[in-house]
């Protein structure tokens, strides 16, 4: 049921992942930060979020680009769940229409 090589790979993955989870905390726990470091920490999270979804912005599917535009508009004025529904709904619809 459990292959030793797979188990080893899974355990190593889990170890590396946990290090990334605690690394920032361990390094910065006992330090007070200057304004420059605070500016980085303020900008960093947004940079990560937008980098993760960057592939959608350069999609070669017109349907996905239109859905993204609708989503951006929705995100600036609607709460979370309606925005998700706009994104998922428009992508599903447009992908069927523009095949």
């Amino acid at each position, binding site marked *: 049921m459990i292959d030793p090589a797979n188990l080893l790979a899974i355990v190593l993955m889990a170890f590396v992942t946990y290090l990334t989870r605690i690394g920032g905390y361990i390094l910065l726990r006992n330090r007070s930060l200057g*304004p420059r470091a605070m500016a980085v920490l303020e900008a960093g999270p947004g*940079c990560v979020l937008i980098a993760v979804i*960057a592939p959608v912005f350069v999609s070669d599917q017109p349907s996905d680009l239109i859905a993204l535009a609708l989503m951006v508009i929705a995100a600036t004025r609607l709460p*979370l769940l309606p925005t*998700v529904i706009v994104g998922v709904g428009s992508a*599903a619809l447009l992908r069927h229409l523009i095949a």
Partner: protein
Amino acid sequence: MKPPRPHSRDAAGQATTWAQCCAGAMASLPMLFGLVPFGMVLGAQAVQKGLTPVEVPLMTGLNFAGGSEFAALGLWTSPPHLLLIMAVTFLVNSRMLVMGAAMTPFLHHLPKRKVLPALFLMTDASWALSMAQMRQRAALGIEPAFSLAYYMGASLVFYAAWVGCTTLGAILGPMLGHPEAYGLDMAFPAVFLVMLRGMWKGLRRAWPWAVSLAAAALTYKLAPGAWYVAAGAVAGILAAVIWAPAPPAARK
């Protein structure tokens, strides 16, 4: 039945632990639109790559970071290349170094023995929910701004959903279709966009995001694999360093 009240307070003006936990769990629900189908797809993919339905929850339960699991499974062989799997896992998850660092200034009131286990459950989604809530609480003058109960409420929902759905996907495997056909892969971008709006502090502060987006998009087009997340984040952070506001008094 009254709807849940995420901001119910006790006499001291603090939301109770249980209320915070429920608020976190409720806030996590919209994100399950994206998580559930992709968990099922990941489980199905893992079985195709030769993992057993026992190994799948082992991976998703111990590692618990979907992006790295998709990336690792894309490179999975029998037996797997350990160094390659570790490097890809680190690359995809390196953003969590930044995320953990960003959260650390708000964790000083908690002992290390609580923070270290709690960080095991940190995901993009639970972290972003907590950061958004911290901003609200800080604006209302609530101390401490970080609520461990809220974070745990959201995190545990994601954990249960992720391990559950990937296992289900491993068992149901071949019966599943493509979640892209239903647009479900757009749920995460939608969630992230709303979170970015929550972090918005004017156009000037958002320049690093634009740099990050451009660098990530370019890297995504030009380089294979998951390099684009790291490239975008590093470029954006460099931009933030360069454009950092000079006088400390001018901040906030």
